[in-house]
């Protein structure tokens, strides 16, 4: 077929109807369309299938422990390999506390950094600043762990924790979070290192979201005589808040599963839940990583797999809760939109 023929064919829709769909026809008939459709279906369902299979396998392996301890597996805080008692509450507590603390620290800092990059930074500074922050995401977690172990912990023990104890400790309610001796290896340090690790996620997504705010929104506000801060507060943040919440949630997801760095600074003690951030703690992921290799008795092994299944459940709950939150916020935005 010459080029001219092809041009003619494309130019004349009549020839299409006569010959049938020429391109598909030449490449193996109408079947290709169906094949591709099923291929897409399979890939789409394969992903949830992996999740379901993973969960089922975890539950099967964890069953001996779950059956034996029942609800106590989640509510008991006694994890004793010698006496074969396994309650994972300290691990769940440690994971949730450090992850929330990380979120609490990283979200304002991350959004602030993203606002700087999108709203304040002079053009030549934008790329280097955001590049540097995002570079944090490329650092393997063991490096954070070593840094946390050798650099952060001593600073926390000798400076930050004594300061928090004297500044915040005497206050009612919140003060109870900062009680006890400063060891440096505790939930507080675990939360701080996690906050650094999830920062790049929050910054880079918030930045994308802020950049997506229409220029008209911004300029309209400024044209009304608003200061830059007012424009951010009234026009930009409300527009971007769903995306910012999403950024925080992706950060939280990373924090929940993070293992190595936290293990090295959290103190790995499952003995007590005191309510103070200055006590050594333990996370679910650390417990698995630490204890898996030597779990030679079947019930112990099963209990550790049980912790893995729980971690999956906790992650799922957090994600669902987060999605509901976003849904709520986005409805708010929709209303705000009609009002504006």
């Amino acid at each position, binding site marked *: 077929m010459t080029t001219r023929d092809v041009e003619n064919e494309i130019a004349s829709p009549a020839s299409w109807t006569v010959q049938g769909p020429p391109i598909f026809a030449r490449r193996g008939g109408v079947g290709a369309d169906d094949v591709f459709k099923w291929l897409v279906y399979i890939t789409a369902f394969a992903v949830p299938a992996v999740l379901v299979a993973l969960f089922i396998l975890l539950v099967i392996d964890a069953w001996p422990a779950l059956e034996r301890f029942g609800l106590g597996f989640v509510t008991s805080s006694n994890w004793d390999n010698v006496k074969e008692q396994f309650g994972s509450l300290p691990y769940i507590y440690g994971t949730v506390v450090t992850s929330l603390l990380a979120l609490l620290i990283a979200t304002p800092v991350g959004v602030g950094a993203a606002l700087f990059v999108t709203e304040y930074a002079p053009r030549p500074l934008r790329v280097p600043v955001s590049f540097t922050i995002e570079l944090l995401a490329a650092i393997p977690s063991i490096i954070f762990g070593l840094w946390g172990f050798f650099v952060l912990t001593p600073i926390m023990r000798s400076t930050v924790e004594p300061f928090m104890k004297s500044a915040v400790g005497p206050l009612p309610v919140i003060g109870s979070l900062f009680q006890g001796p400063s060891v440096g290896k505790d939930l507080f340090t675990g939360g701080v290192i996690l906050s650094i690790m999830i920062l790049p996620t929050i910054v880079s997504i918030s930045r994308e979201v802020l950049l997506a705010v229409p220029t008209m929104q911004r300029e309209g506000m400024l044209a009304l005589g608003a200061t830059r801060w007012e424009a951010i507060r009234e026009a930009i943040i409300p527009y971007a808040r769903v995306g910012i919440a999403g950024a925080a949630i992706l950060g939280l*997801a990373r924090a929940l599963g993070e293992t190595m760095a936290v293990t090295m600074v959290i103190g790995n*003690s499952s003995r007590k839940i005191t309510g103070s951030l200055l006590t050594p703690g333990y996370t679910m992921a650390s417990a698995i990583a630490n204890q898996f290799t*030597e779990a030679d008795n079947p019930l112990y092994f099963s209990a550790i797999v049980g912790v893995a299944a729980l971690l999956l459940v906790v992650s799922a709950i957090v994600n669902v809760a987060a999605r509901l939150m976003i849904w709520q916020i986005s409805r708010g935005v929709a209303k705000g939109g009609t009002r504006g």
Partner: protein
Amino acid sequence: MTTDRPETTSRRSMVARLSATFAGAAFLAACGAEAEPAKAPAAPTAAAKAEPTKAPAAAPPTAPAPAATGAVAITGPFEGEAKTLTGAGATFPAALYSKYFNEYNKLTKVEVNYQSIGSGGGIKAISDQTADFGATDSPMTDAQLKEAKGGEILHIPMALGAVVATYNIPGLETTKLKFTGETLAAIFLGTITKWNDPKIAADNAGVKLPAEDIVSIHRSDGSGTSFVFTDYLSAVSAEWKTKVGASTTVNWPGGVGGKGNEGVAGEVKQTPFSIGYVELIYAVQNKLGVGLIKNKAGQFVEPNLAGVTGAAAAAAGKVAPDLRVSIVDQDGAATYPISSFTWILAYKQMTDAAKATALTRLLWWGTHEAQKFNGDLGYAPLPAEIVTKGEAMIKSITGAGKPAFPGK
């Protein structure tokens, strides 16, 4: 921000866990490698001490074998033996085994692939027959032995290790503190909380102990080191035995957990007024203050390789024939009380004759000629009494029904 976030999360955490495991292994391996040169200067003194105290027995490794087997020596490749063996298990002897297997490969061209995945993993590997041999720091329990798929499993001691109490008290860097088993147990139980507690002071007359809180540091990961230490505390303290017990991971009454020997050593080094326990070699390497421990004979002994070999020799006369024994808190004036064997696990009836031959030759060489490498790497050599018992075990291994060890 699509519907697949739960998968993303779980996958990420899986990867994190996996990478953590690998990173941990790499970290250990790195430290193990570093251990060699760092340990070297300290070793000659330890070895020198070993010779006078432990008679001719422990020192020259080829000598102790009794006359009957004195002529047996592995000198080169053997016709018909398997050329590769795989093993898995304890991390504590990994540095030693890697030296063994490297030298053995030069000698016999047999390639031994050893994965230091932890004692629990080693027990699992041999039980499920996914490795030709396992390695462990804590002996298998009767229940575990029953579950092994390939029949009877032998525990062949390869070397001895010691666990030391190490501490960091500013101002007392050069003072060697003395501890009894009871005070150590009380410190880790949390019943002794200050360094100037009368119980500690009673053993350390003349030392100005600070009135500071004790931070106790333990292993967060399951470990043979923890097993030996808690086994010792259980042997000397009834309270410890009932409240905590002995295992590779226990429910620590308090304190902070560090990952690996290097984690505990590092933690002690950077935490003032802390106390932890590590393998002897890590304390030496990190120049940590090491405590003297009161042994059964009432002497405060400094941990060294001679004292460890002494503990094994003292235990040898009364041990169970399968050598699944704890050698903590043994008799003898110079015996260091927190000592332990590290074992290789092998099936008595192996199905693959070529592998059985290769493995028995390796074990023989390991318990005889190779013992000379132990001292340099911070492990105590086996006493002659134990080597003899090991010989009998090695000879009892069969391959496809026939005795596997060719005698050379």
